[in-house]
């Protein structure tokens, strides 16, 4: 695996980078190292500044403050055509008046590579991205969505960049094809050994592909870590909710270190002690639907709640229940084998252990 051969050095470094458009702060001061050969995904809702961040890395926007360096050399003012980086656009930005082959050969043509060598390289790259050779002369606008993705990818690879940027290229692709392309992209990352920086609003997409994930929210880089870290140890409520459907309970500190009182649901809760909330007066408890159990007669857990079932959804291999606890709706996910066979309106007791919940600061 090429990724392991490389020394763990940053290829791109952002120090104190900030970007404003007039009064609007698109990206708030942030530091970020992109490591050589890694697959880094920046994830965040629309308007979180992730695209602006990417455009600064690609050289299409200059930072308002701070420095961007490439292998230690400051590149703030270096224009995109001079950077060893290449972007796959959200719109793909394929040239509609050029054939598949001409699109892929574009960066080579710009460099003055002779036609014959260009064609050979284009055909080779079409193999890499799994496009049939017969597509070489095909009008790029007559290709399907997935085929266009591959053309755009091959064109970016033809530039032979050290870093490839992706600006949500899969957002307009249907779910099934998206899953296929995500895995292909991950394979391609491993095969090429290049650094990939990917932008998406879908954390699911980020989890599948990335070595590391950065979560952005309103211009701030909230958390950077491996998918495992982001999943298991979100730094705040936003990150945890961004990870998918979760139950979030607001709590106040009661007596001891591990003893908290519910704010939006009644009850006393035990939280595993952790750094983030060591001296906080209020916090959130995040419990994933799959960690909530339905407690039978006599069964116990560290924490328990009483509620009423009011909805049931089949999610393929799992079943999700909505359980009303006071004013709050909790989500419980059970495997089909554990299905409750309970009618809406039936009372249930939910429970979870302290170690299965995450405490995040307010």
């Amino acid at each position, binding site marked *: 695996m090429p990724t392991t051969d490389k020394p763990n050095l940053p290829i791109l470094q952002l120090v104190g980078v900030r970007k404003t458009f007039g009064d609007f702060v698109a990206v708030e001061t942030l530091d970020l190292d992109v490591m050589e050969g890694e697959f880094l995904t920046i994830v965040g809702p629309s308007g979180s500044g992730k695209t602006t961040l990417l455009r600064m890395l*690609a*050289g*299409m926007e200059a930072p308002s403050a701070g420095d961007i360096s490439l292998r230690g050399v400051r590149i703030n003012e270096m*224009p*995109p*055509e001079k950077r060893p*980086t*290449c*972007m796959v*656009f959200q*719109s793909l*930005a394929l*040239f*509609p*008046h050029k054939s598949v082959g001409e699109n892929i050969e*574009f*960066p080579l*043509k*710009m*460099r003055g590579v002779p036609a014959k060598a260009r064609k050979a390289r284009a055909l080779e790259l079409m193999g890499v991205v799994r496009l049939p050779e017969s597509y070489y002369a095909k009008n790029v*606008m007559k290709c399907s969505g997935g085929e266009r993705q591959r053309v755009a990818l091959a*064109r*970016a690879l033809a*530039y032979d960049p050290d870093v490839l940027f992706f600006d949500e290229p899969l957002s307009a692709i249907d779910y099934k094809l998206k899953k296929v392309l995500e895995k292909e992209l991950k394979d391609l990352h491993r095969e090429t050994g290049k650094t990939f920086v990917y932008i998406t609003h879908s954390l699911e997409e980020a989890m599948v592909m990335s070595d590391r994930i950065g979560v952005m929210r309103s211009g701030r880089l909230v958390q950077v870590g491996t998918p495992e870290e982001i999943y298991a140890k979100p730094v705040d409520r936003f990150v945890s909710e961004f990870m998918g459907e979760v139950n979030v309970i607001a709590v106040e500190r009661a007596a001891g270190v591990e003893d908290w009182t519910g704010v939006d649901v009644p009850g006393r809760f035990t939280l595993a002690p952790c750094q983030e909330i060591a001296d906080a007066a209020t916090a959130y408890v995040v419990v994933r639907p799959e960690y909530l159990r339905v407690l039978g007669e006599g069964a116990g857990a560290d924490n328990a709640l009483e509620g009423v079932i009011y909805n049931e959804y089949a999610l393929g291999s799992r079943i999700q229940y909505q359980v009303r606890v006071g004013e709050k709706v909790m989500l419980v996910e059970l495997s089909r084998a554990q299905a409750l066979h309970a009618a809406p309106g039936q009372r249930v007791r939910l429970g979870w252990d302290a170690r299965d919940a995450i405490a995040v600061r307010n």
Partner: protein
Amino acid sequence: MVSLSVSDRATDTATKPAGAPRLPFRLSPGARAALPLLGLLAVGFLAPLLAILAFSFAPPRSFAVLRAFSLANYAELFSLSNTVWLSFLWSIGFALATVVLLALIAYPIAFGLTFVFGRWSGLVSVLFVFPLFVSENVRLYGWVLFFIKNGVLDGSLKALGFSGGPQVLYTSGMILAGMVYTYLPFMLFPMTLGLAMVPRDLIDAARDLGAGRWQIWREVEVPLAMPGILIGTLLTFVLAIGAVAEAKILGGQSVIVISHDIEIAFTYSQNWPLGSALAVLVTLFIGTLTLLALQRLDLDRLLGRR
């Protein structure tokens, strides 16, 4: 009369009971809606053309339309002693030079309007449209007043103690300048439309893939803006080849262009059949060129349908 027949039809369809006698053919709603325009075109466009065509086959210097058939007018135009081809060459020459100059002048402005001027684009566009509100002849006479001996320029310079302004009036260069000035909007706006259709992303992508400014222009900008550029070229060429006012007013008849020849035949020499034959030839020439150009032009893409 037209309005009467329209209201008749309206009441007809409204009051006609089912089973009333129907027309032997049915028109689609689109065809019916196009009927007034079709009528206008037939009366205002097709009929004069047909009249000209008929006149061109009448005996020279007569008004005997459709009463006698003669090819004498065409024979005269093609006779070796006739110098009308000179006027034709002047017109083509002026038209070509106008189109080339306009393309060179309008492209940077169109580029500015699309990519650079931002919120000032509207104002700049209005400034370019504004002269169209004044009649072309009035504007050209304005130029004459400005450049004429002892006119605005010459007179002012003399009053200031200089030896006087340049005598550019009544030269072919002045005619060309007048044509470029008159037809600028007709090149500028189609070109701007063409450039506006070049997605910003594609230019960004081309840059990102290593293309320099010149390469972007050649590989992306011009090919994608081509429909607009072609329409502008076609429009200005057709207008310029039929132009007459610039040569008459700014050129002071130092050069006779083809439209001027036609005008002379119809007015001064009262030879309608000859003028008609000339008009037919010019129309055929321009029509053929236009059709050839339109064949290469993808209007669907221009209108964003593809």
